[in-house]
């Protein structure tokens, strides 16, 4: 009781200080504002030392499995035994949640998607990664290395984990003729009104921008994540119009599988794994990569700038992209692995083919999620682009 009381007293003192003088704001990071965009200077780890005994992880559900979900699905226990690093995992539901969690400073590594990674880099929340210290990095597909969402000026900010595209799924018994273009989900006169679904996140604005990029050349969109005022407004307007057609937005896949099976949804964006599951459960669905191409995601394991357990973090990053672990995750989660050697190790030998893991032509058509910044990510310097905060507020308006 006594210690409890003093704790409360300490809490009181802290709250009062904070409320009184507003705090000192902490670090101010690097430059800010268009033109002055610089990455906070954070040193990468120079050499690997002994493990610290634990590592705090933020991950997508299914990325960190220690056998507690399914005894056969376990790529954590072995790592813990081998390195002595106890893995404490926190599952995040959305990219945005991941960013907030990393900002708490309580976590060491994160499996960030491209719509989170740049925010983390420019926010000074993650450090560049010394890939020399990660033995398995050399086996990662070249198509995933040093990309816009995981590197700055050639400096890697993480190790690629896996990838996938946001496909178009439809029920073959209701949707005829079979669609080949995204136009079906934007057609105001669509016969499937009220049964169309879309991904519930501000990043979905990029799907509309991609469609406009191919259908409205006047807008001169060259990258769906770099939208100036006019381009952004056009995408938002398209989505507001689409909102009339939407039955529901989805963000978790039990919801989407169930909606497609019951017929509440018959047409909309999906992931390969969702289509596989829906089909396996007996619903007549098909998914395609439409003629315009698609958006997609590629997750990156990143290490916190102020990681309390940097050595265990590096050990973890090396482990999670090792051929065996990477194959395990890719199959369990349902995505294309990032390690070339993983394809030989999957239990289902057709896994890499199903998920187009080695098909660079396929992924050529995919615009991976990238955080929109005010400094246009397509390299334009004469205009300001809409940043993610603007995308978020627009998403609220689109949903109405």
């Amino acid at each position, binding site marked *: 009781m006594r210690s409890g009381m003093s704790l409360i007293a300490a809490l009181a003192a*802290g*709250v009062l200080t904070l409320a009184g003088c507003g705090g000192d704001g902490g670090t101010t990071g690097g430059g800010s504002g268009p033109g002055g965009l610089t990455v906070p200077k954070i040193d990468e780890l120079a050499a690997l030392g002994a493990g610290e005994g634990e590592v705090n992880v933020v991950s997508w*559900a299914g990325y960190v499995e220690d056998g*507690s979900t399914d005894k056969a699905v376990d790529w954590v226990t072995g790592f813990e035994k081998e390195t002595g690093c106890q893995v404490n995992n926190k599952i995040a539901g959305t990219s945005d949640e991941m960013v907030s969690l990393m900002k708490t400073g*309580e976590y060491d590594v994160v499996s960030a998607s491209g719509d989170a990674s740049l925010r983390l880099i420019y926010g000074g929340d993650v450090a560049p990664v010394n890939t020399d210290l990660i033995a398995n990095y050399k086996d990662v597909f070249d198509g995933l290395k040093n990309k816009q969402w995981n590197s700055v000026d050639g400096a890697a900010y993480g190790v690629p984990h896996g990838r996938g595209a946001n496909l178009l799924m439809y029920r073959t018994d209701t949707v005829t003729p079979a669609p080949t273009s995204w136009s079906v989900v934007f057609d105001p006169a669509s016969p499937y009104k009220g049964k169309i679904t879309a991904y519930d996140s501000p990043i979905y604005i990029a799907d509309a921008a991609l469609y406009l990029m191919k259908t409205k050349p006047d807008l001169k969109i060259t990258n769906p994540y770099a939208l100036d005022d006019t381009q952004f407004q056009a995408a938002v307007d398209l989505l507001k119009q689409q909102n009339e057609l939407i039955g529901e937005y989805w963000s978790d*896949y039990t*919801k989407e599988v169930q909606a497609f099976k019951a017929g509440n949804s018959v047409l909309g964006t999906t992931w390969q794994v969702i289509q596989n599951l829906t089909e396996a*459960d007996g619903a007549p669905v098909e998914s395609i990569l439409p003629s315009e191409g698609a958006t997609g995601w590629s997750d990156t394991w990143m290490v916190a700038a102020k990681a309390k357990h940097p050595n265990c973090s590096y050990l973890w990053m090396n482990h999670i992209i090792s051929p065996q672990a990477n194959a395990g995750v890719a199959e369990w989660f349902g995505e294309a692995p990032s390690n070339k050697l993983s394809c030989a190790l999957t239990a289902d030998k057709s896994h890499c083919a199903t998920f187009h893991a080695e098909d660079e032509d396929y992924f050529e058509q995919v615009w991976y999620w990238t955080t929109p910044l005010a400094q246009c990510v397509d390299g334009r310097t004469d205009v300001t682009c809409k940043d993610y905060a603007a995308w978020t507020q627009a998403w609220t308006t689109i949903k109405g």
Partner: protein
Amino acid sequence: MTLSAPARWALRATMALGLVFIYVPLLLVLVNSFNGDRTFAWPPHDWTTQWWAAAWANEGARQALLTSVEAGLGATAIALVLGTMVAFAVQRFRFFGRDTVSLLVILPIALPGIVTGIALDSAWRSVMGDLGIGKGLFSVVVGHATFCVVTVYNNVLARLRRTGTNLEEASADLGAGPWQTFRYVTFPMIRSALLAGGLLAFALSFDEIIVTTFTAGPGITTLPIWIFNNLFRPNQAPIVNVVAAVLIVLSVLPVWLAQRIAGPEAGASRT
């Protein structure tokens, strides 16, 4: 009140319909825990016990259950102490701001959970974080205790109001010290109220997800969080149904026990 026969029947019918409304979805959970389909297709086309076997072997669920029980017990213990203290203060004393105190106790449950959640989260980060105390199970207990105080407070307050202070005064007149009076007179009087309040506090904590989402530290998975993480993955969703079905069945036990202990007294107090 003498009710006409039709009125009694109407009430009985409403009660029955209400129970149907309450129990049909729960029954569906139970049925779906045997549904062979991973996303609960309706009507079920094949039946299986594989989910029950999988749930039995699921260590994550057991771990989460344990964490939830720990958090619930911690929060309930704090709520019992704090709630009883406030109830005594408000019922046995007149002081300036008495009404405000009762409003203050109710506030954490009356404000939306997301507000409580983000308030505690950001305060914890900026205050406790600076002290080097990260979020963990303890922050969950603190969060839950804050909104659980009210259930104990209300139950004890109602009991104190009914019982008055005669017995305690008699005890003091007969030479008992304050501790003896509390131990032998006051405590037995409020025991069943504490039980009822504590049980409700535990139940609130046990099923709390929103505040927990914002206050749980790394590696802390309570049962609702575990359910949240697993319900949205088709391979896992049926196991969640099993866990829920087990919870429903198990929950009868504490509620029934509490009713038995609190029962006779509750009956006797109706004058």
